[in-house]
């Protein structure tokens, strides 16, 4: 299977790899997927409680090149956005940006789930009710 140039670029030079302290009250962590499905994404965001702006984002992903690229792109996109803006990111935006083929759409779905899960975790820490994040990733 040929990968798009953007997928290859994110794979070769993943953006924002790493971890943030998960016990920091301003850090939201999303861990989605499952090892037996071949994809696990961990997406973390440091969110300013005053402005609700995502100041930092980090990821680690176990998965194919498209999964790595989807999560790398997600960190790039959420940085500097407000929580509401980040929640508006759709998996189809990721598919379009990375030119993912149909068999890789689940990678983008997982990235969207990861964003929602991380923000949900942050909101929970701040006593805000978590949005009804997608409970299951479709594979």
């Amino acid at each position: 299977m040929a990968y798009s140039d953007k997928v290859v670029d994110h794979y070769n030079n993943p953006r924002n790899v790493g971890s943030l302290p998960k016990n920091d009250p301003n850090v939201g962590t999303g861990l989605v997927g499952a090892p037996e499905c071949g994809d696990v994404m961990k997406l973390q965001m440091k969110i300013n409680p005053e402005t609700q702006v995502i100041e930092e984002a980090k990821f680690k992903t176990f998965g194919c090149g498209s999964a790595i690229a989807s999560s790398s792109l997600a960190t790039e996109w959420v940085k500097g956005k407000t929580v509401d803006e980040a929640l508006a990111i759709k998996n189809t935006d990721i598919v379009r940006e990375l030119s993912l083929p149909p068999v890789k759409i689940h990678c983008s779905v997982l990235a969207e789930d990861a964003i929602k899960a991380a923000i949900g975790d942050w909101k929970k820490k701040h006593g805000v009710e978590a949005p009804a994040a997608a409970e299951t990733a479709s594979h």
Partner: protein
Amino acid sequence: MAVKLPIYMDNHATTPVDPRVLEAMMPYFTGKFGNAASRNHYFGWTAEEAVENARQQVASLINATAKEIIFTSGATESDNLMIKGIAEMFREKGNHIITQSIEHKAVLDTCKNLEKHGFEVTYLPVQRDGRISLDDLKAAIKPKTILITIMYANNEIGVINPIAEIGKMAKEHGIFFAVDGVQAVGKIPVDVQKDNIDLLAVSAHKIYGPKGVGALYVRRRNPRVQLSAIIDGGGHERGMRSGTLNVPGIVGLGKACEIAQKEMPEESVRLRGLRDRLKAGLESKLDEVYVNGSMEHRLPNNLNMSFAYVEGESLLMGINDVAVSSGSACTSATLEPSYVLKALGVGEDLAHTSIRFGLGRFNTQEEVDYVIDKMVQVVTKLRELSPLYEMAKEGIDISKMKWQTA
């Protein structure tokens, strides 16, 4: 010495044609183009002579006689013919077939097809080492069993089954024994007499011959095996496989068998050395790598390893100047991880991280060393990226976590 890239190390999928094989084939495309079935002119005789010579070369490699070899379009056809041919010929005698869960799809799907036509098939499980248990086999035999079909060596993990023991058991029970010999023939000694094999499927392109040609050994004595044809036509190949013979391909298969027979003792030792070097290199430089299947009962040219916490397709993407294959779901058409590794009891998480290395005649030590370095570099990089590796290092038991699964 600089290695030439890309490196091909996927010799279970296919092999390049040996230049000596190609040279033997060439005259049969142009000057010696006759139809081997043309019995009354020079062109036909020349082709027939070449085919009969190849038949002898194939027979010799497996300790059969030339008359027991029929030529086909490849091992998938041979597998179909040996199983469906016996099933149809002997369906009055019984409708039960025994196979195993990690056969090649050419055998599994043929058996599934027969199930739709009134046959009952037992799919034996394999043990953790990738071999069937002889006790399981014995317990599965019924009065209605007409055929046991078990592969000599597996195409993913290279594990070799106890073929001689199975052959003996089949013979004692008067059951035909059909063997998919694709990965074993030409790589390790295969002897249809010693192993009591009644039918054996062979492919040319796995042994440095051309694609599109294969053979089926059909025992003629003790017992004489009869088969129903699955392709009707001019009655070629003793009526078992109609169709004009692919003379250049058959010549190539014959030559490939001749070379394999002559060079196997030396080649298998060399490849085993390279394989062991590859394994030792990876194991010494990476933690948490696991060999899938028995190392003791294994083809000399195969290594199948799981690289924990690193997904197979992303690994392949990182080593894109090395051609190997993965048991990861993402590399298969079905999005399911390898059914072979699953049958061994390898967890799905580790199945996703498996890589199959298939060494071959044209691989060198320099290439092996390059592959070791590249693998270590990419696995290390991807583990830095892996949340599972991070969790494992923190002492979290990933298998006990609750994951959101579909």
